[in-house]
């Protein structure tokens, strides 16, 4: 078979043909994968919420969104079978990480005791700041924040006079992390009785400035 000549007509025909082939292929794969992709995206938050909360029956997956400047806090409330609140998961961010934003989700019970936390996004230095994924739930010395009542505990790095041991060699990351935790608690308390969704409440940001160093 001889090679087709480069006439305008041939070029248009071939390109149209290839485009049609590409279009059909992509469209069919897209329809095939569309739903699965959507599922996997929502389940990530759901998974994190489940991981950090005490056992619950159902959760309001539509978050109560709080905005303050650049920091957004999402509060997911969890209820038992009788529709009584058992706790809330708060997604909270800090922009003072060593390398940009730290996005965590913290679970509180109704008394404000930290149940667990999960790191959703962070770009801290591997081996230093990146240890936050497990550091603050490891029960060594004073590094564990689980079981602490965020209302009565001083959730600051011990170097700054708080009661939490920061990550060795990563004070800045530790500060940013604990800032996000405090911010989460603030959002949690200011929403204990907010039932409706989409309310906007101011979030404390005074701590943020002081930890800029």
């Amino acid at each position, binding site marked *: *078979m*001889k*090679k*087709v*000549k*480069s*006439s305008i007509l*041939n*070029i248009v025909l*071939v*390109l149209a*043909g*290839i*485009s049609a*082939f*590409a279009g059909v*292929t*992509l469209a069919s*794969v*897209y329809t*095939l*994968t569309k739903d*699965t*992709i959507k599922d*996997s*995206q929502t389940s*990530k938050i759901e998974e994190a919420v489940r991981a950090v909360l005490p056992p619950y029956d159902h959760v309001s997956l539509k978050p109560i969104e709080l905005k303050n400047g650049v920091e957004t806090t999402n509060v997911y409330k969890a209820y038992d079978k009788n529709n009584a609140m058992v706790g809330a998961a708060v997604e909270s961010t800090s922009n003072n990480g060593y390398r940009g934003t730290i996005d965590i989700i913290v679970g509180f019970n109704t008394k404000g005791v930290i149940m667990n936390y999960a790191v959703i996004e962070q770009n801290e230095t*591997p*081996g230093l700041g990146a240890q936050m994924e497990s550091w603050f739930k490891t029960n060594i010395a004073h590094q564990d924040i689980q079981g602490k009542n965020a209302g009565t505990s001083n959730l600051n790095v011990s170097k700054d006079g708080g009661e939490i041991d920061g990550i060795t060699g990563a004070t800045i990351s530790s500060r940013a992390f604990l800032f996000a935790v405090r911010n989460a608690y603030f959002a949690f308390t200011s929403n204990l009785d907010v039932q409706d969704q989409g309310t906007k409440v101011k979030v404390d940001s005074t701590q943020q400035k002081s930890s800029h160093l």
Partner: protein
Amino acid sequence: MKQSGVKVFLNGIFKENPVLVLFLGMCPTLATTSTALTGMSMGLATLFVLFASNVVISILKNLIPERITMTAYVMIISTFVTVAEMLIHAYYPAMYVSLGIFLPLIVVNCLILGRVQVFASKNSVFYSALDGLGMGLGFTFALTVLGTLRELLGTGKAFGNTVFPEHYGALIFVLAPGAFITLGYLIAVVNSAKLRKTEDIEDNID
């Protein structure tokens, strides 16, 4: 031109290994091999794109006019890259996140455009398919080895299984400089093996 199918297939895996001998596709090689699993996934995704593009292009090679070969090739390749991206996103979301931008960037991997131009556009479907498979497997092999070494030295794990405590891992191997160091030594090993081979032959001549 007569050629043996086995030879075409093995060529990509050993003699002309795209990473260790031809130095093609260095960018994903260095960027996605921080663990064995990501390296292997990247290799397999590339294998899929390379195989599919090689086949389709060798079928269409006579239908594509000279002046638009590049346009046509890139369109076909990018179609398959997008397909691979959507499939991984749907069925392997964790890997979609760890591969990140390097998944869509397969389209600019010189390995694929190179093989398509050098091989598929001149050979029959059968040999092109074998070439795509061989080159793709060679690429996957190199990336998996590199990823395994980096993961092991950096975190003490192999495919996520702890070999020695993570505490003893040298983090640099997980980071970019470690990719260069490991790849350098891997290439050194391959070169020294090749050198020994040629020296043996020379010795025999003497």
